[in-house]
């Protein structure tokens, strides 16, 4: 009995002493992602982890170490945390009738899919980013891109979607699909990217 008590006490002491104050684990990125890393620093040192499931641990004294974990152990250790991850976002590109903030016919039809997707998600949001070509000044294109995004936002809100979760953003001419010289009329760049998340 006494031996058992000593054993339990030793185990508890060991676990308490070993449990790191902070642990950071790098997860693998999606298929399109570049290699990534996390840097963990304290007053006493620093560790960079850059392999999937590599882990940095910091003890109560601020000492930093690293170790390699296995995918299975990480899944078992954080079941609820991992299950809480929301589904990945979906993107749509909508086009406008030339020179207007009015959607082209096939894009108007796509809007129904956007709404459907946004409604089935828990706390679904619709993020609408307007883009322009490079005809006109940066300032006027910022305004035009925002008007285009706002026009789509209106449509989404009119169909009864919660207005606090629909955002209109103007990116102007900063993010062309087809890079061009200034003042070039490029229909592919006159668009709105709609992200449902």
């Amino acid at each position, binding site marked *: 009995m006494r031996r058992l008590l000593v054993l339990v006490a030793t185990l508890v002491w060991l676990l308490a002493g070993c449990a790191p104050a*902070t642990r950071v684990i790098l997860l693998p990125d999606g298929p399109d992602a570049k290699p990534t890393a996390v840097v963990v620093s304290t007053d006493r040192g620093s560790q960079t982890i850059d392999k999937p499931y590599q882990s940095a641990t910091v003890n109560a004294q601020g000492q930093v170490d690293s170790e390699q974990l296995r995918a299975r152990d990480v899944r078992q250790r954080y079941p609820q945390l991992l299950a809480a991850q929301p589904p990945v976002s979906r993107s749509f590109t909508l086009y406008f009738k030339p020179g207007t903030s009015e959607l082209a016919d096939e894009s108007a039809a796509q809007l129904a899919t956007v709404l459907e997707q946004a409604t089935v998600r828990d706390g679904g949001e619709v993020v609408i980013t307007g883009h322009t070509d490079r005809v006109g000044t940066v300032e006027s294109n910022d305004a035009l891109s925002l008007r285009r995004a706002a026009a789509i936002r209106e449509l989404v809100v009119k169909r009864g979607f919660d207005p*606090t*979760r629909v*955002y209109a*953003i103007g990116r102007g001419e900063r993010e062309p699909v087809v890079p061009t010289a200034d003042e070039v009329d490029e229909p592919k760049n006159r668009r709105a990217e709609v992200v449902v998340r």
Partner: protein
Amino acid sequence: MMHIRHVSAVSVRLLWGVLCALLLGVGAAMAQAASDTGAPQGDNRQGTFKTVQGEVVVERGGKRVPVSSGAPLMALDRIVTGPRSAASVILRDGTVLALGPDSSVNLAEFRFDPTTQEGNILISMAKGSLRMVSGLIAKLKPEQVKITTPTSVIGVRGTDFIVETHS
């Protein structure tokens, strides 16, 4: 006396008329201003709750507010999850935060300009577990995204990772 009362009734009616006109005018001006800016965010939310399981609250200005899916996360909010509880939030720049059970995480700083996609994030974690999949801010300037725990500072290089900490 009667005369005076009559006059005052008329002037009260006039006053109401003027007030209503003013209110209408202010309302119209506000609607105008809102549509000028594309009427984006109805509230000043910095994030939106997605999954909410069990007992999840935000501490905001000294009050504890229970949250559900779709609820806003504001700057300076602290998210607190109970035992067997979990939550996830997407911040305005697309950063995804998930919290496991018994966690306490504070959005200490969040600034994001959606037009230029510049900003910064500082998350201060007291306890529990947190998963972060970084968004647009980290993509453009990873050095602008930091997480602190009582013992460490975590710098992000555009990543998906877990932080676990004990108080």
